[in-house]
């Protein structure tokens, strides 16, 4: 079975986000960018399924700016076999909406005919948590979001999902879209020899127009602002003082 894994280039999760003074967005110039952490988990899961013999080929896809090829090379270095870059924006500040990304990925899936798509559950920049579900809808496939365990069982997948209050286990018919939650696995680091090998792996470059998808946003950003800050608090010297303050504040 072939697996498709969409990956997104986002601001590195360790970088402190700065809102631009003019309210037009978040400053991404000269900021360290990395693969979305949930997408790393998705790539890792595909590799583990391949190591178990359940998967034959892993194709990674990224939709965004040209620089996303670095993100694809990282996935190739981890162990993906082949990559497709769909250039859909020139400016790193342009975020392609999940609906448009899902439409492009659906076209890629029609061409590639994977048996399964594993995506990250959410990108840590726009925090939408939508692309996987939208892609599943457009393809008319089953979906298993927020996965913490995935097992291939013949023509279906048994997936344990992280839900409010605990875990839910479902069975989904293949082909299916799975979205990876935090505890699905711990992604590996690419070794130096694998990083070198990844440079020779196939990376095809396409554009959104090649797939006939209109990426015009449906949502207009009116403004981007800093969240309201909190007033400075006080340091208490002892547990007794803390209890006293909480009683004074009326929360106990």
């Amino acid at each position, binding site marked *: 079975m072939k697996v498709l894994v969409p990956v997104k280039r986002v601001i590195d*999760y360790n970088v*402190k*986000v700065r*809102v631009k003074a003019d309210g037009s967005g*978040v400053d991404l110039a000269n900021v360290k960018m990395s693969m979305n952490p949930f997408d790393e988990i998705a790539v890792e899961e595909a590799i583990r399924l391949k190591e178990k013999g359940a998967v034959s080929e892993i194709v990674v896809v990224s939709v965004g700016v040209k620089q996303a090829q670095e993100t694809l090379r990282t996935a190739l270095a981890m162990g993906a076999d082949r990559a497709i870059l769909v250039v859909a924006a020139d400016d790193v500040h342009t975020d392609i*909406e*999940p*609906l448009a990304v*899902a439409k492009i990925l659906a076209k890629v899936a029609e061409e590639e005919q994977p048996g399964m798509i594993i995506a990250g559950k*959410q990108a840590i920049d726009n*925090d*939408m*948590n*939508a*692309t*996987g*579900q*939208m892609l599943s*809808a457009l393809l008319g496939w*089953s*979906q*298993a*979001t*927020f996965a*913490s365990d995935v097992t291939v069982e013949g023509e279906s997948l048994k997936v344990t999902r*992280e*839900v*409010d*209050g*605990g*875990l*839910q*286990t*479902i*069975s*989904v*018919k293949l082909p299916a879209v799975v979205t990876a939650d*935090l505890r699905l696995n711990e992604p590996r680091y690419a070794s130096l020899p694998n990083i070198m090998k990844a440079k020779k792996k196939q990376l095809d470059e396409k554009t959104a127009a090649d797939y006939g998808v209109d990426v015009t946003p*449906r*949502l207009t950003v*009116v*403004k*981007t*602002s*800093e*969240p309201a800050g*909190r007033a400075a*608090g*006080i*340091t*208490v010297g*002892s*547990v007794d003082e*803390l*209890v006293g*303050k*909480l009683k004074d*504040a009326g*929360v*106990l």
Partner: protein
Amino acid sequence: MAVLLIAELHGAALATDATAKALTAAKQMGPVTVLVAGAGIADAAAAAAALDGVEKVLTADDAAYAHGLAEPLADLVVSLASGYTHIVAPSTASAKNALPRIAAMLDVMVLSDITGVVDADTFERPIYAGNAIQTVKSADSVKIATVRTASFEATGAGGSAAVEAVAAAGDKGLSSWIEDKVAESDRPELTSAKIVVSGGRGVGSEEDFALIEKLADKLGAAVGASRAAVDSGFAPNDWQVGQTGKVVAPDLYVAVGISGAIQHLAGMKDSKVIVAINKDEEAPIFQVADYGLVADLFAAVPELTEKL
């Protein structure tokens, strides 16, 4: 304007707090019809009809909706969508699962986790783990949104809406439910608790998390955990507070052994009063805390539990 609010269920019962908070947001968009989809949901429908300001309650009582599977629920909502300008639900795991699917089927975008309603087309939502707030205006014919419940007060009782059954939309059988493993607990639910006590990596082990639980039980609080504590296996993931876990805004939040990573702060910084207990006085958690206690948690937490 006409809003369809998808009610949140716990099994067959209405999750009143989450639904009533999303209702507060929905009422700012227009008159609200509530959809209750599940199996054996007469009581849940009656509870939804009693919420103040609900115009009508639609019920889809069918085994296909018993476990919140996204595919049949999405088919149902799409079959009912005509005539509504907004389709909203509280930002729960089940709504986050289904609403983007519904949006794509209707060829519209989804607005995830809205924290404010500016007008019927314009909404506020956090991005970058709450480090920025974006105001977005939708050009879509139907606005589909999940509502961050921590940002809205719950609507109270006082309604007496009519309840009307609608036809189920079938089940293509793409997915099937196997089992739920829901932790049984007498503690309040994390996202609606008045007090939350959370532990971080500083707690050190799953066994020592009992200290956090004892303090929580003394306070009648829910138990939370940082992502670091979950990653380290000290606490289950459904306790996780933060960007990738739950967003809470209780009256009192007690952070124990939590350094205060950006992604954790995103999940709790709207709490009314924040207490931080950490032995590292440089920990970023102290920058958002109203009351900070620089102390060894293994001494301070038992002492606090005893003195409350």
